C-alpha cells in the first residue's frame, strides 16, 4: 500500500500543485513566487518520475519503461524550459501567471499519464483533460481578440470527445476490456472488422487532431498564429511530447495488428500534412503561423516514416522529433528575446532589421531555422538524414522525392524570416533582451553542437530506450 502511494508521488506533487495554484490569490505582485513555486514542484515531480520510471503509477492501467522515461524527460524538460522563458513575459505584460502555470501542470499530469497508459479508458480521459487544459489556456491568456481561436478549439474539442466516446463504446463492445493487450488480441483476430477499424480510426483522429496533423491542423495554425507567445511556445513544445508518446505507444501496443490496414490512412494524412504544411507556410505573413505550418510539415514526415511502427521506424521518427524539438525550443527562446516597445512580434514585417539591433539572437534564430531545413552542419541535418535514409532503405522513392520537393517549397517561407531579420533596414528600436534568454539560447546551441559532434549519444541511447517498447 505504502509502496503504491510512493510510486504515485509524481502525480500527487502535480495534482497538489494544480490545487494550490487554483486556490492561491491571483496577485500580480506574487508573480515571482508563483513561478518559483511551479519550478520547485515541477523539479520535484520530475525527480520522482525519474526515480520511479519503471514502476506503475496506477497499478494495472499504467506501466513504465525506458521509452516512457524518454518522453517524460522531454515533457518535463520542455515544461521547465518554458517556465523559465515565460516568467519575464508575464512580468513585462503585467499579467497573472497562475493560469499558465496551472495549464502546464495539467498538461504534465495528464501527459505523463497518457505516455504511461496501457489502458484505453485512461488514455481517453487523459486526452480529454489535456484538451480541456489547452482550452483553458487559450481562453485564459489572451491579449488580442482578432480571431476566436478558443471558440474554434471548443467546437473541435466537443467533436473529438464524441469521437472518443464512440471509439470507447465500440472497442468495449468487442473486447470487454480497455486494456491495450486485450484490445490487441481482439484486433489481431478481427483485422477485417469495419466497426473496429472505425473505432481505431476515431481514436487516432483525436490524437492526430491534438498533434495538429492535416487536415485537422486548422486549429493548430490559427490558434498559434493569434495567441500570446508563452501559449504559442507551450503548444509547440509541451503537449506535442505527450501526444507523440501516447500515439506511438497506442500504435505499438494496442493496434499493431491493424497497422497494415492503417498504411493508406497514415500515408494520406502524412502527405496531406506535408503538402499543406509547406504550402500554408508560404502563404502567410505571420511568423508564428509560418512556424506552426512548418510543424505540420515536420509532423507529416514523422508520420510518414513511422507508418509501419517497426522498431527502426519508431526510432527514426523519435530522432526526428527530438531534433525538431531542440530547434523549435531555440526558435521560441529567440522569439522571447525579440520585442519592440514591450510588444512581442507576430508579423514578418516586424522582424525587419532585427539582426542590426539584436545580432546574437538573430544569428541563433537563423541557425535554428537552417537547422529545420536540414542544412549541415546543424543538427537538423541529422533528422533529415535519418528520415530520408529510412525511406530510401525501404524503397519509398516517391515519398522521398516528394518530401524533398516540399522542403524546397517550405524553404521559401523560412527564407522570408531570415530575409526580414537580415536584409531589411531596421525601422524600430528593439528592446533589450533579458540575459536569461541568451542563457537559454546558448544552452540550446551547446546541446546541438555536442549532439552533432557525437551523434552516438543521441542514436544509441534513444535506440535502447525505444527498444524497451518492443520487448
Amino acid at each position, binding site marked *: 500500500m505504502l509502496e503504491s502511494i510512493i510510486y504515485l508521488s509524481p502525480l500527487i506533487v502535480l495534482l497538489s500543485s494544480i490545487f494550490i495554484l487554483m486556490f492561491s490569490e491571483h496577485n500580480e505582485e506574487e508573480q515571482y513566487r508563483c513561478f518559483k513555486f511551479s519550478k520547485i514542484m515541477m523539479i520535484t515531480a520530475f525527480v520522482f518520475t525519474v526515480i520511479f520510471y519503471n514502476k506503475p503509477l496506477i497499478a494495472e492501467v499504467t506501466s513504465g519503461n525506458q521509452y516512457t522515461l524518454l518522453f517524460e524527460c522531454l515533457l518535463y524538460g520542455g515544461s521547465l524550459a518554458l517556465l523559465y522563458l515565460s516568467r519575464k513575459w508575464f512580468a513585462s505584460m503585467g499579467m497573472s501567471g497562475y493560469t499558465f502555470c496551472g495549464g502546464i501542470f495539467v498538461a504534465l499530469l495528464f501527459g505523463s499519464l497518457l505516455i504511461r497508459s496501457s489502458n484505453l479508458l485512461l488514455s481517453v480521459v487523459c486526452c480529454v483533460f489535456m484538451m480541456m487544459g489547452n482550452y483553458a489556456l487559450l481562453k485564459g491568456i489572451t491579449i488580442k481578440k482578432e480571431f476566436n481561436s478558443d471558440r474554434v478549439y471548443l467546437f473541435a474539442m466537443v467533436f473529438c470527445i464524441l469521437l472518443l466516446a464512440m471509439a470507447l463504446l465500440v472497442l468495449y463492445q468487442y473486447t470487454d476490456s480497455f486494456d491495450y493487450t486485450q484490445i490487441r488480441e481482439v484486433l489481431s483476430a478481427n483485422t477485417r472488422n469495419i466497426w473496429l477499424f472505425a473505432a481505431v480510426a476515431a481514436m487516432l483522429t483525436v490524437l492526430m487532431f491534438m498533434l495538429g496533423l492535416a487536415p485537422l491542423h486548422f486549429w493548430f495554425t490559427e490558434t498559434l498564429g493569434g495567441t500570446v507567445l508563452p501559449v504559442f511556445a507551450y503548444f509547440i513544445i509541451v503537449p506535442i511530447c505527450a501526444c507523440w508518446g501516447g500515439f506511438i505507444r497506442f500504435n505499438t501496443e494496442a493496434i499493431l495488428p491493424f497497422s497494415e490496414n492503417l498504411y493508406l490512412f497514415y500515408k494520406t494524412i502524412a502527405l496531406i500534412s506535408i503538402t499543406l504544411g509547406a504550402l500554408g507556410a508560404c502563404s502567410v505573413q505571420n511568423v508564428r503561423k509560418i512556424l506552426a505550418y512548418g510543424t505540420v510539415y515536420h509532423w507529416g514526415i514523422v508520420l510518414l516514416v513511422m507508418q509501419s511502427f517497426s522498431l527502426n521506424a519508431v526510432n527514426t521518427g523519435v530522432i526526428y522529433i527530438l531534433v525538431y524539438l531542440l530547434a523549435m525550443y531555440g526558435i521560441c527562446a529567440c522569439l522571447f528575446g525579440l520585442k519592440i516597445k514591450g510588444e512581442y512580434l507576430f508579423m514578418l514585417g516586424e522582424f525587419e532589421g532585427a539582426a542590426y539591433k539584436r*545580432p546574437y539572437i538573430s544569428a541563433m534564430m*537563423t541557425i535554428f531555422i*537552417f537547422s529545420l*531545413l536540414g*542544412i*549541415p*552542419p546543424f543538427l537538423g*541535418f541529422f533528422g*533529415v*538524414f535519418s528520415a*530520408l*535514409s529510412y525511406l*530510401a*532503405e525501404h524503397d519509398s522513392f516517391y515519398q*522521398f522525392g516528394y518530401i*524533398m520537393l516540399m*522542403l*524546397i517549397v517550405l*524553404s*521559401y517561407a523560412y*527564407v522570408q524570416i*531570415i*530575409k526580414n531579420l*537580415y*536584409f531589411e533596414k531596421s525601422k524600430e528600436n528593439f528592446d533589450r533582451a533579458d540575459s536569461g534568454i541568451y542563457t537559454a539560447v546558448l544552452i540550446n546551441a551547446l546541446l546541438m553542437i555536442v549532439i552533432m559532434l557525437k*551523434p*552516438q549519444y543521441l*542514436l*544509441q541511447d534513444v*535506440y535502447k530506450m525505444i527498444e524497451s517498447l518492443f520487448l
Partner: protein
Amino acid sequence: MTDIFPLLLLLPLLGCLFILFAKKNDNNSFHVVLFTLLSNLAVIVRLLTQINRDNNDLQSFHIAYSWLESKGIELVMDANLFSLLVLLGIYVAFIIAVVGLTPQQRKNKSQMLLGLYFVWNVTGLLCANDMVSFYIFFAGMLIPLFLLIGLYGNIKKNSTLYLFFAFNYAGILCLLTAMLFVYKYHQGNVELQDIALIKMPAGAAVVVWTSVCMAFISRIPIWPFHYWISSINSGLRSSLVYVMTNMLPLTGLYGFLRFWQITIPKGILPFVPVVEIFGIMTMLFIALIGLSHKDFLQKLFSYNTVYYLLFLLTTIMLPEAYIINIAYSLITFLIVNSSLTVLDLWAENACEENNCDYRGILAYMPRLAVIFAFFVLVAVGLPLSAMFWNNFVLISAFFRTSFTQGLLMMIAICIISTALLYELFIMRDATNKNPVIEIEDISDTKVAFLMAVIVFLFVSFFNPLWFAF
C-alpha cells in the same frame, strides 16, 4: 607528416570564434581573418614541400574521425597534391580579396565572420574524402554565401535572392539524394573514389549520377542555370563577397573532378554529349554576353564562367592525366581573378570619391594601371604565368580530341579575352579628360603587396611550384 594537416581545418574555426567575440567596428576581425588565412597558407606550403614530386601518385595526408559508428560513418579528410594546389590558389585569392577591402568594409564583423566560415567550408570540401563529409561542406557553404549576398549584394528583387537560395538548396538536396542512395547500396559511408565501384541497379545508378550532376551543375553557370549567378553578381561591391561568389562554380567543378576520378560512370554516359554541347554553347554565349557588357565585373564574371566551363569540359572529355594541369591553371586563374576584382573596385572607388568618369581612370593612376595591365594580360593567356603553359596543354589536347570542339572553345576564349582587353583600353583611354586633375594612386603598401603577387605569378611561368620544391 600529417601533424600539421588538421590545422587546415582548425584554424578557420578558431578564427571564427575569435571574431565572434571581437569588438564591433574595429579592425580586430580583419586582422584575425588575415592572420588565419596567412597561417593556413603557410600550412599549405609546408604540406606541399612534404610531397614527393617524383611520385606519380597524388600522395596525401590523411585523418579520420569516427562520427557515427553504428551507421558505419567515418569522416575521412584527405589532402593530396591536387587539392593542396587548388587550396593554395584559393587562399592567395582570399588574401588578395581581404586586403582589397575598403577601411569601412574591414570593420564589418559579420562580413569577416561569414567570409572565414566560407573559407572553412571550402577547405573542408577540398579535403573531404568521403561522401558524408563532402556533402556537409558542400551544403555548408550556402549559408554564409546567401547571407553575404543578401547583406551586401544590393539585390532589389526578392525573387532573385530566393532563386539563388532555391537553386543551391535544390542542388544540395540532389547531392543528399545521391548520398542516401549510395548509403543504401553500400550500407555505410564510402570514400569518393570508390563510389563508381559500388554495385547498384541500373535505375539507381542513373538516379545517383543524375543527382550528382544536377548538384554540381547547380553551382556552375551552365545554360539554363546561368541566370541566378549572373543576377547576384551585378550588385556586389565587396571584393571578398565577389571572390566568394566566384568560388562557388569552383566547388561544382571540384565535385565533378572528385566524383569522376577514374572514368565517367556508366549510368550517366548517354548524357555526356549533351553536357558537352551545352558546355561549349554556354562558353560561346557567355563570352558574347561578356563582350556586350559595360561593367568590368560583369566581363570578369563572363571570363570566369568561360574558364570554369573549359575546366569542366576537360574533366569530362580529356583523360585523367590532364587533371593536374587544371590545378596549375586554377592557381593562377584564382589569383588573377581576385586581383582584377580588387583593382577594379579600387578604380571604381576612386571614381566615386573624385566624382569622375570611369573611362580613362587608369590614365590618372599610373601605378594601378601597370598592375592592372599585367593581370589582364595574364588573364587573356599571354606567356606571363603558369596558366599559359597549362592552358596551352589543355586546349591542344582538345584540338587533338575534336577539332571542332577545340575551335569553338578557342573562339570563346578569344572573344572573352577581347572583352577584357577592350575594357583595359577603355580604362586607359584618356581622350575624354576628366575634370579632376589629380586622383590619388594606390598606396605603397598595396603596390608592394601586388608586386609580390606579380613576382609569384611570373616565376611560376618557369617553375609552377617554385615555392615548394
